[in-house]
């Protein structure tokens, strides 16, 4: 038998008030990001270029270190990371040329990427380097592949698709579609290092991998997935279509790696971590994540 006085109602009311206050209190997580990487950026020539050492003596105030030089995009920002932590950044000139010196004394894995003036990032470029005391290692001839983005994730057959990005001027480049059939397009790069191409998609229905590259280069931009189908979907309308982007923040980074690592070797993983859809999390999923990593 329930008998309630005014006092009991006051008690219930107080509890409810406390509950409302509790739920309205913001939830602060005083955590810092562990490490972040940038995105991708690849040189066409760096694998075969000579590496020169100016032995003996120093270069400026640096006793030993590395000089990275080459071409990104006009006014692009080139970021240098050491063990996936940013250590330096430099802005390229109007022709896209850049040069940056980083002091270092021991073996190190350096990672470079370029960000064009519209904020699009290149693919990552890694350099494991051996250093010698009193010497400056010169790694030159670096060339980042173009950046790329599309206005749509999914495009209706014969409807218009826009592909745009940053690239070096005066170097012929192409946009490649690879899927049920292959097709290439030739955009024109403006003097400020931007290209934009809108065209009707005359391809059979299916998923296509789209990338940009310089004609004289085998390396390419990051890869976009574009579906040619029966409806349009703007990129801005989509949550994410990056493989491994499990927190849907458009970045593939350490957070996504950690979610993947949690599901490693566990049964029945969520779809977002199972990047190759084979219902298991193994090294292949990590490899796909590493390919799409963009910080």
């Amino acid at each position: 038998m329930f008998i309630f006085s005014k006092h009991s109602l006051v008690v219930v009311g107080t509890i409810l008030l406390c509950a409302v206050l509790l739920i309205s209190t913001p939830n602060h997580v005083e955590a810092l990001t562990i490490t972040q990487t940038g995105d991708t950026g690849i040189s066409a020539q760096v694998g075969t270029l000579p590496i020169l050492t100016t032995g003996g003596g120093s270069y400026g105030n640096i006793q030993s270190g590395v000089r990275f030089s080459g071409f990104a995009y006009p006014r692009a920002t080139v970021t240098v990371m050491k063990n996936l932590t940013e250590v330096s950044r430099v802005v390229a000139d109007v022709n896209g040329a850049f040069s940056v010196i980083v002091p270092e004394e021991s073996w190190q894995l350096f990672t470079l990427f370029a960000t064009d003036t519209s904020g699009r990032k290149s693919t990552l470029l890694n350099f494991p380097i051996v250093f010698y005391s009193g010497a400056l290692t010169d790694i030159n001839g670096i060339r980042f592949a173009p950046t790329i983005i599309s206005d749509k994730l999914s495009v209706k057959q014969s409807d218009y698709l826009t592909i745009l990005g940053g690239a070096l001027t005066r170097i012929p480049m192409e946009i490649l579609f690879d899927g049920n059939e292959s097709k290439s397009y030739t955009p024109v790069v403006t003097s400020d290092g931007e290209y934009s191409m809108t065209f009707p998609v005359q391809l059979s229905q299916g998923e296509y991998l789209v990338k940009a590259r310089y004609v004289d280069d085998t390396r390419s931009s990051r890869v976009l997935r574009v579906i040619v189908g029966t409806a349009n979907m703007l990129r801005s309308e989509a949550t994410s279509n990056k493989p491994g982007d499990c927190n849907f923040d458009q970045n593939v980074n350490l957070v996504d790696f950690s979610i993947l690592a949690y599901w490693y070797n566990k049964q029945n993983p969520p779809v977002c971590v199972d990047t190759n859809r084979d219902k298991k999390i193994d090294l292949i999923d990590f490899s796909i994540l590493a390919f799409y990593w963009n910080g």
Partner: protein
Amino acid sequence: MKYFFITLLLFLGTPFMSTAAELSFAVPEVVSGKPITVTVLLDTESESINSAEVVLSIPEGLLLSGYTQTTGAIAIWISKPHIAADGTIEFSGIIPGGVERLYDPENPQKRAIPLVNLDFVPTETMIEGEFRVIRSRILKNDGMGTSITTQSIPRFVSFKTNPTSTYRTGDETPPEPFTISIIESTFFARTPRLALFATTDAGSGVKEYKIKKGFGRYVIATSPYALPLTLWGSTLSMQAVDYEGNVREASIAIPGNRYLQGVVIGGMLFVGYFLYTYQRKRKKQV
């Protein structure tokens, strides 16, 4: 005639056969009283690779004592170098963006990338045997996780040394300061709330991490560490311990889970409303 065609096919096919990547070992001269550092090298034959998974056997009388995190190409570990149940050494990790070759200005022909430097201590006087890759998986940086053919070259070693079960490096510096990050989860999400942590130790390497929730006891943990949903907040304390026993501590305040709080508060509101309605009905009846 038959042999002519077979030879012709082999001759024509040779240029199109893919070359294999090569795993090998570099073992420096052994100095008595110092750890034996073995470098696992990978020559990718100019193929860009971004993932490696290696299982290797080591000579009897050697014990894995650590690894040097800052002198290998593997940027992020999936599984840090450790001794497996069958006595083999296993490790796996990724290199975001991929890597093709080493850049050594004094030896430009050296292309093999050091994946990891493993430290061993001798437990017997005479060490004789092979460092050998039992199995490995090296994946291309192509967005599809394509395996590349890999061959390996075992390395035979034979030397006398002073056995020691506890090698002292003289490292008195604790691991580098580190922070703990929390990846929040939702009430219905399948991936729980995760704690992420990582640090390095240049002296002797990070041996293990220990974690403590609230007033509980420290237990060994690995990142990512799954945290249960709790109604109330608490403090998560961590210790990074290097191979010489030096400790670096970090902590973070974890709030109570808002979704769980929402469920509890929703329940309380429902009960409150029910009781209030019941009270009014009773008053009307009276």
